[in-house]
């Protein structure tokens, strides 16, 4: 009663036989052995398991592994290239955009999709774009700064300040 599933994860082909009920996040963690993708809830609220599926941000607890058949997946482990951190990873480091680090992989993947869709987001667009990802440590202040900073590095011009940040100096 196992089903074959073939995917490409971070550019590498994976073929496995899995139970049809196996969630994609458990496939990534327990079968493919990529533990950077985390599980923080059981109702698809927290976003810690966010990955890219064919370039689109998906909470990998909302898909079965078999639904990923033929798809190209990117996890946090696939973000750095040739030993260089992705600009988002670098920005999270530079701007102190993480503390315990548990939400960070999902946050970075959601931000990657956000910037792909909208290279020059305002602060409020960043907030909106990350509303599916919970962080308990940072109050999101430095996460917003990180995404703003990465957008700048990645070529979008400086993010316009949203109305809420206009008064803030930090």
């Amino acid at each position, binding site marked *: 009663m196992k089903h074959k599933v073939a995917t490409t994860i971070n550019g590498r082909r994976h073929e496995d036989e899995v139970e049809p009920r196996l969630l994609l996040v458990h496939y990534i963690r327990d079968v493919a052995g990529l533990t950077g993708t985390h599980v923080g809830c059981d109702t698809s609220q927290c976003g810690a398991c966010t990955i890219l599926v064919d370039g689109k941000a998906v909470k990998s607890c909302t898909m079965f592994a078999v639904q990923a058949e033929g798809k190209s997946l990117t996890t946090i482990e696939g973000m750095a290239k040739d030993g260089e951190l992705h600009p988002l990873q670098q920005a999270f480091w530079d701007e102190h955009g993480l503390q315990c680090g548990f939400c960070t992989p999902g946050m970075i993947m959601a931000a990657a999709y956000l910037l792909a869709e909208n290279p020059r987001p305002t602060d409020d667009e960043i907030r909106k774009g990350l509303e599916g990802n919970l962080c308990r440590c*940072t109050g999101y202040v430095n996460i917003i700064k990180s995404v703003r900073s990465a957008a700048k590095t990645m070529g979008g011009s400086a993010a316009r300040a949203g109305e809420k940040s206009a008064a803030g100096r930090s």
Partner: protein
Amino acid sequence: MAITTMIGAKIHRREDPRLVSGEGHYVDDFTRPGTVSLAVVRSPFAHARIKSIDITAASKAPGVVAIYTHKDFAKVLSGIMPVTPSFVAEKKHNPPRFPIAEKEVVYQSEPVAVVLAETNYQAADAGSLIDVDYEQLPAVMDLEKALEPKSPHVHDGAADNLGWDLTYIPDDVAVMKEADVVVKQRILQQRLAPTSMETRGVLAEYARGDGTMTVWMSSQSPHFARLFLAGAMGLPETRVRVISPDVGGGFGSKISPYSEDWLVPAAAKLSGRPVKWIETRTESLQTTTHGRGMIFDLEAGAKKDGTLVFLKVTQYMDIGGYMGTFSAFQANSCLLAGGAYNWKHIAARTIGVLTNRVPTDPYRGAGRPEATHLCERMIDLLAGELKMDPAEIRRKNFITDFPHTSHFGLVYDSGAYEKALDRALEMAGYEKLRREQEEGRKHGRYLGIGLSSWIEICGFGPSAGTAPATGGIALVESAQVRVFPTGSVAVYVGTHSHGQGHDTTFPQIVADTLGVPYDMIEMRHGDTAEGPAFGYGTYGSRSLAVGGMAVHKASKKVVAKATKLAAHIFEAAEEDIVFDHGHFYVKGSPDKRKALGEIAFASFGMNLPEGMEQSLEAVAYYDPSNFVFPFGTHIAIVEVDAETGDVDLKRYIAVDDCGNIINPMIVDGQVHGGVAQGIAQALYEEVVYDEESGQMRTGTLTDYLVPTANEFPMFELDHTVTPTPTNELGVKGIGEAGTIAASAAVINAICDALAPLGIKHVDMPASPDRIWKQMQNARGTSRDGHDGKEARK
């Protein structure tokens, strides 16, 4: 101290490159060959008698390895889960707690059985086939009704539901009569779920050959976990190793031992297989200890000129079904209730009440957010009554002389409360805001400005104060510094970093003390097999003021030994040796100098002073002489929607003083997160139980509202710096400050906004629903000519 270069610098965190790359290692990222998954079968009822447990069907389910209930665990676990005497000496009733229920369950989701299976899916499947026959008993949910003589009991057959009742200071009626104005208020502190993004989890492996138990656990205090587990399993501590690797947040909820911390290792011993249990989010919301859960009855009085006279506090604390290990610690709400002010008299009584809910225990701030909230609310109520500006009544009554001995005998180390207030007012543009508020009111806009001049106690703590509170173990801290032959340095600490950035900040201290390049210093924590015999963990904003000082002390011991050796090598007197930026030389000959690394190499050789042993390494235990008392002023600016009651948090200003700062970037990050959790309590979060059945209604993140990025403005931060004289680094603590300050600032702002309606107090969470109802009531009564004076005496 030498001229510093690293202390105070914004050093980017060295733990981050792996964490942003998905190379962190949290408990669930570990596995051992042959690991089985454990699922816990939990009570669906808040209170019930267990009549029978039928495991027949579950035993036959695919993949099942074993099923264990109380009778199995009783073979390998002895003793009850620990409860510290803590600050409440007069315990009335502390019901014993075994990690799994035998005959009675006293809160929803108390463990009843466990299933071990080859996969976590199979364990969950089989768990649902276990048939437990319960006889439901009445659930005790209301704190006041629980104390009535006719109330049903949380524990069947118990005498009453009273956990403790302690009067710290009784009423001084003569002083209370001196007040010209008196305000009374009941303030609720709703239950909160700490909700670290990583839930709890345990992986345990028992080696039968040599009888050693290795446990990977998401914990803030691995040494305490080892101490308790070794005791429960009858193993010497030397054969129990607890590893707390990367931990995805704790916020106080990963200090105390939990049922699963013992059940998983016990199951590993019983089954002979490594066993892993990872808490689901629903389990986390239902079983990980909650914070707050209190009712305060308050009375405060002042003179006509605004001079504070008295504050009377009665705290009712919802203990839950069993007393949490550090539950009584939260009675410190009483001890800190006076806040930053001179009161002529403070009366305080704490009453702990058992209920059929999950136990409460420390959650970020643990008693101090409640203290700030009640104090700052009462100050605003007095200001309203006296028609004084909230800033002025604070300024008039601040404690200004330090050290200051409080009514409860606590000695406030240092402070400059007015300075922080002034800076916050300046950043807010207070006068302008008041004018805008006045103008807005003319147009039906409800703008509010809320102040919170907070103080706290942290840096737990001096042995004299903490050993009696824990039942014997002083909450000092340990560190070991080892210098290797070629000059690399390893530091082992007993604190645990789960987001606080110790891997970065502690080496900053060592770099300055030893004069060794920062990159040559390795920091290790979270493994009881390494470093000193005992470590005390991270909680109560203690890591820097106690742990950082232990690191500093161990480093200084290394320097002292190296100085002796340098004197021997230079054939000079020890007092003539100069130690400067990591180099030793004889006074007057700085050109002939030797680096610490060279001395380290020599320390492993044969040319040592008589009696000196090889190596440069030192263990230090640091016992602080006092607690430390950080402080600050936060200001929240809100607008309440006149139609819907929705609160728009427009700005948030935080001026904090935690003494000297090691790494400003990390300090600001701690404030951000702390403030966010305080705002979350003020506006969004609440654990809700059905008051009849005791069923939790907020068992998922759909129902329990952890805020998203949409809910916060960018916080505006600054600091004043008032070093503590308590320790050589002049440092206090900042981990809980934001949470301690924020709820009061936000609620004061909301009450300030709604003052024109005669609304004096709003409880938390200040949801649109709650505010809308109060606005409706206020508008209704206003039309009847009622001026809302019912709260006044």
